[in-house]
């Protein structure tokens, strides 16, 4: 008896909670899920990505397609299962029809697989940049307006070999799909130019103590290519400095990003002069970029310059809102018209034009950079060269590119 009464009470309560939510939905509010890493080793990256997404929302004055837009946060810790869990929560509990995210490489692949089971929901990438999120077995409802980790490396391999004169390079990178993609992009050019990579050290995400890895690095290399993110990068760099590391560094895109350059502590000495490449350059001198930086800086806790995560979430969120405008906020057909609009979308970002290929992967400009100290003492990525409109196959014919095989620990090789 008392159990039955309690159940009725619970039901009544649930109805009371649900009803106002339903009336709110009638007032034309559209919820969009934003999934990023607000926990774990990549927390600082997730925080900045949210600033990027909010910058886009502010630009649209929180309205698109005639509806009020509301972002709902989903949090993961950079592990694929946590990303899928957060995506499921956003889609199945909060009922979002559009989801922006996730942040990290393995998460992207996992969420893409999840997307296949939810054909009526539209998934737009956050900043995850593994190659196979879109290149092999893509999901028809997963879109990526930010480029992938191999694209980000465009120009760096050649620059390291020809301009810097490094003939042999050791690799230290985290052990998951995004760094595989970055190393692939770097080595594709570097090995072709005649360089050698005699050793690769793959370390787990969240490694604190790199000193053993540093001690095991070969002595006879000209430089060390480092593809680590967030706290991992900071730990490696400071321990490399402590150990008196002599070889110059080459940075992966997120290793010398604002999320690392703004670290409290002294990394300046090892970082200045480090070449890298990625989808942004802090000293880019175009009015679009400067306007974006100004808007970004209005967000709480903003860095001196937006990180590539803020940039990627901004671009993807902007794409989501632009396409919503195009279909006038109408998702009633299960989002078909919306996805068609997304696939055709081509627009100007702070870093130049972006459009999608047949796999719904971005084609955009990439920037070759070098770490330098700004006038106020802050570290910045100085623009060295702009490489226009890099596609996913790095300009190689698609069949030939596919024949290079899946990126992995051992592919590519040139010892």
């Amino acid at each position, binding site marked *: 008896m008392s159990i039955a009464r309690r159940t009725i009470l619970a039901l009544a309560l649930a109805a009371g909670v649900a009803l106002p939510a339903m009336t709110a939905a009638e007032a034309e509010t559209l919820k969009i899920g934003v999934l990023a890493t607000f926990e774990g080793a990549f927390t*600082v990256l997730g925080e900045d990505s949210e600033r990027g997404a909010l910058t886009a929302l502010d630009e649209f004055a929180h309205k698109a397609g005639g509806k009020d837009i509301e972002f709902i946060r989903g949090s993961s810790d950079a592990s694929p299962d946590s990303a899928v869990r957060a995506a499921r929560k956003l889609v199945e509990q909060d009922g979002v029809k559009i989801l922006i995210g996730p942040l990290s490489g393995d998460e992207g692949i996992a969420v893409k697989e999840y997307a296949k089971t939810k054909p009526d929901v539209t998934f737009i990438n956050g900043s995850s940049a593994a190659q196979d999120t879109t290149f092999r077995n893509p999901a028809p409802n997963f879109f990526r307006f930010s480029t992938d980790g191999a694209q980000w490396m465009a120009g760096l391999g050649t620059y390291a070999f020809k301009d810097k004169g490094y003939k042999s390079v050791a690799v230290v990178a985290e052990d998951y799909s995004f760094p595989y993609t970055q190393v692939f992009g770097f080595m594709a050019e570097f090995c072709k130019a005649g360089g050698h990579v005699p050793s690769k050290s793959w370390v787990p995400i969240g490694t*604190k103590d790199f000193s053993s890895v*540093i001690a*095991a690095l070969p002595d006879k290399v000209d430089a060390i290519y480092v593809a680590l993110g967030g706290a991992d990068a900071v730990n490696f760099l*400071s321990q490399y400095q*402590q*150990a*008196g590391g002599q070889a110059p560094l080459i940075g992966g895109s997120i290793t010398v990003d604002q999320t690392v350059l703004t670290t409290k502590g002294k990394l300046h000495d090892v970082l200045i002069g480090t070449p890298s490449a990625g989808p942004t350059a802090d000293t880019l001198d175009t009015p679009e970029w400067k306007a974006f930086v100004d808007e970004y800086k209005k967000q709480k806790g903003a860095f001196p310059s937006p990180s590539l995560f803020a940039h990627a979430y901004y671009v993807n969120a902007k794409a989501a809102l632009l396409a919503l405008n195009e279909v006038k906020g109408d998702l009633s057909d299960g989002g078909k018209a919306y996805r068609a609009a997304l696939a055709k979308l081509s627009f100007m970002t702070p870093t130049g034009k972006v459009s999608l290929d047949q796999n719904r992967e971005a084609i955009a400009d990439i920037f070759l950079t070098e770490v330098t100290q700004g006038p106020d003492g802050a570290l910045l990525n100085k623009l060295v060269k702009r490489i226009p409109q890099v596609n996913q196959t790095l300009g190689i014919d698609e069949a030939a590119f596919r024949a290079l095989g899946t990126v992995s620990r051992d592919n590519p090789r040139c010892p």
Partner: protein
Amino acid sequence: MSDNADQGRQALIGSGTGGGLTLRQVRTLFWLIVAAALAWLFIARWPEWLDGLLISKKAFLSAILNGLTLAGLYFLVASGFTLVFGLMRNVNLAHGSLYLLGAYIGYEVATVTGVWLLGVAAGFVVLAVVGLVMQILIFRRLEGDDLRQTLVTIGISIVAADLMLAVWSGSTYQISPPDWLQGAVKLPFATAYRSNGSVIYLTYPFYRLVVFAAAVAIGLGLWLMLNRTRIGMMIRAGVDDRAMLAASGKNVHLIFATVFAIGAGLAGFAGVVGGSALSVAPGEDVRYLLASLVVVIVGGMGSVTGAAIGALIIGLSEQIGLVYFPTYGVVLTFVIMVVTLSIRPQGLMGRAR
């Protein structure tokens, strides 16, 4: 019972080796051989094939030394954890949060005052007070209710993680140790020989050696306190039989509060010391909680010696795994834990209850 088993094993070994050796002698011999092999690896000039097998002498020696210093750090965190568990049967799952909070407080104090040692002291003192408050306000009310205590500590750790994220954001902090602790020292182990015959010695960060030395000193101090002082005697008595200790007229709550304060203070101390060696970032709390759980499970719940042995095993295996098989290095710690649980469920130094 155990005597019988021992005799059985001795008989077994005796028949295998042709008689004469007791189990103890076999054990001593085994450890002597291991020690000799290690000493040879450290001192001798390595032949080519060994370099090929273990990457290089420098890599191997660094992995061992790093394993030792990491073990020192793990021991500092886990010793408090194991003491609290042994005495109060309280699995304090907020122990990792104490580590992280200590690190942040140490950073703030060291940055504001400019004196690193003050930061270390603040990490210990503030966290000891926090531990005391937790014990008095929360755990005393839940005494004897293991499940509820465990759930409450999980709750505290989640709330604390979010509060720290709100205050210190997700950025990575580095606490700079003073100049006199920085720099590298030359150790008397040759790692390579130049063609002209001169020897290259292993250099190692001085600060890490200090961390290890501090851990050893604190470990010795804890051992002396537990085995040579009156309060230590009471703590050991409490570990063995809490009810009997209370019945014999000792103020159990005072002892509990002391142990909790020491445990929490050590976690805070480890936070500052570890944050100076590595770095401070969100997520560290879970990492060190997990590490101390594994250390304590392997070493045996409630035993400080066990925590030291567990920390050594886990620290060394983590570093050796990182260098020689990075992909599966993470699994190694858990394999050790599973093997320990299946062979000696109470841990290496733990007592069956």
